[in-house]
């Protein structure tokens, strides 16, 4: 599978949309983790991970199931407290920051399992994010929700960006899986985050949806930094500037696709995982 995807890479590298060409122009590190570790009752899920994500890049985190990728995301966005290590975002120590405040700093995550507000409409899903960004806190329980209609236009524009405008009045739970994921991206974009953490944005999608989502990610990556967990290696090869391979909670290799796909330890980790 690795070698097959590697062929695709070389093709992607020549494609006009390939990002590898502007790799040199990438900025300073925007998110840095040092010695990040997490232990669950004696089980070391993540150990001593050093990660540095360059501003404006698409950085992929790959590795077999159970490698600790989601745990890493939870640590970086403070949904889990690290057992040790530190996290710096935009030069600021966020190791003790609360998850909602991390989001307010512009570091926004998605979830491996699709996360929409099911009984809210599609429009309301996006609007709730706009509400948070534009109004700050909403403790005004005495005011009519009609004031939120001021945000409808912008919410609809975001839905149009991901092709969901036609479903704006439908409850989010009625959407197909792929559309739910598109809605999540629109909701995340409503926060206008500087950095996105996407946990397996294409898991469970058919080939067509994968292609749509890949171009959507490339589209939203303009002016933003993206850290992404993804199993679809051809997508990873096509999209990412830099790849970190995680196995058993440790970093196994790091580099661009050409480098890591030739790394024998990476090949072994993937083959080993497939034998399980």
């Amino acid at each position, binding site marked *: 599978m690795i070698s097959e995807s590697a062929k695709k890479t070389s093709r992607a590298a020549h494609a006009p949309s390939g990002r590898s060409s502007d790799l040199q122009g990438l900025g300073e590190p925007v998110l840095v983790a040092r010695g990040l570790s997490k232990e669950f009752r004696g089980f070391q899920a993540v150990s001593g991970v050093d990660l540095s994500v360059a501003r404006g890049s698409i950085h992929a985190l790959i590795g077999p199931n159970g490698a600790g990728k989601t745990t890493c995301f939870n640590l970086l966005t403070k949904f889990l407290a690290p057992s040790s290590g530190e996290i710096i975002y935009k030069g600021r120590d966020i190791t003790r920051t609360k*998850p909602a405040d991390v989001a307010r700093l512009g570091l926004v995550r998605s979830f491996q399992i699709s996360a929409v507000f099911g009984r809210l409409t599609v429009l309301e899903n996006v609007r709730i994010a706009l509400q948070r960004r534009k109004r700050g806190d909403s403790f005004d329980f005495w005011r009519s929700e009609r004031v939120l209609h001021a945000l409808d236009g912008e919410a609809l524009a975001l839905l*149009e960006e991901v092709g969901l405008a036609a479903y704006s009045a439908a409850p989010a739970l009625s959407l197909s899986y792929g559309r739910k994921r598109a809605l999540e991206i629109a909701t995340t974009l409503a926060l206008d985050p500087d950095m996105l953490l996407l946990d397996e944005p294409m898991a469970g999608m058919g080939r067509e949806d994968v292609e749509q989502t890949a171009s*959507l990610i490339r589209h939203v990556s303009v002016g933003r930094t993206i850290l992404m967990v993804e199993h679809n290696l051809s997508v990873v090869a096509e999209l990412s500037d830099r790849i970190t391979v995680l196995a058993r909670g440790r970093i196994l290799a790091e580099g661009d696709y050409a480098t890591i796909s030739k790394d024998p330890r990476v090949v072994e980790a993937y083959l080993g995982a497939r034998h399980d």
Partner: protein
Amino acid sequence: MSDVVQSPASPSSLPDSRAKTPKAIRLYLGVLLGIAAALVALPFAVYPIFLMKVLCFALFALAFNLLLGFGGLLSFGHAAFFGGAAYVSAHAAKVWGLNPEAAIACGALASMGLGVIIGWLAIRRQGIYFAMITLALAQLVYFACLQAKFTGGEDGVQGVPRGHLFGLFNLADDRVLYAMVAAIFMAGLLAILRVIHSPFGQALKAIRENEARATSLGFRVERYKLAVFILSATLAGTAGATKAVVFQLASLTDVHWATSGAVILMTLVGGMGTLFGPIVGAFVVVGMESYLAPFGAWLTIVEGLIFVTCVILFPNGFVGALAKKTAR
């Protein structure tokens, strides 16, 4: 998702998204008008004292349901707010000689303060732990009421004067008293509807639907939960304070855990998370207690059997079942 990143869909979808709203609003207004009409008509058919008891408990259940249905928090100690406020308003009316509206406001404010404390302590816990902490703290309030001087121990505060509303209207007249209780109930109901349909309510719904996602959007979830907890406590207190004035009595029954249980029952029977379900639930539970009184000690068993039947037949409560039927 074949249309992701395609050309923008036609803007004709916008009117669509609003087309639904008027229908929902009409249904809403219809129900509200129905309730208002019932408030006017019922005293001619039903014993007003019974009605006032139902209304006090209905407001209590509405307050509880605000927390459970929209905050996603199951409190097992709401009697602390209901009963605590009853004691304070009874004391304010009897000892301080305040007008009934001022006494009720004192009770509500006391519950608000109690809500800040209990909420702050409990809000960080989830599910059953939250329920246990609210129960434990409510038991503390119960023992405080048992021990404190001003609560009158086992006797409670008796002979609370009803007084004159705003110093003008004599509440000794049951019709005037009823008008006040109905007005308080209606104001409470409208307040809750406003909370639910406010920007705050919208944030609450998002948190209820997916707490982790709401957090990842930057909502400081605990603060919203604390805020809705305090609102719920204040409204529960308003109900309890009013009850003390109506029955001229605040007693240990009001702060007893069984009262916390009763309000849960009302909400479940009426339909948890439905807007108007708790009102129906309060009617059923209070009605059963009144009309099944001749059964004496058997009351609990008969009640229990009826509830079990209800829950089996209508797992979503009466109003939940009705809503499902009309939706079809």
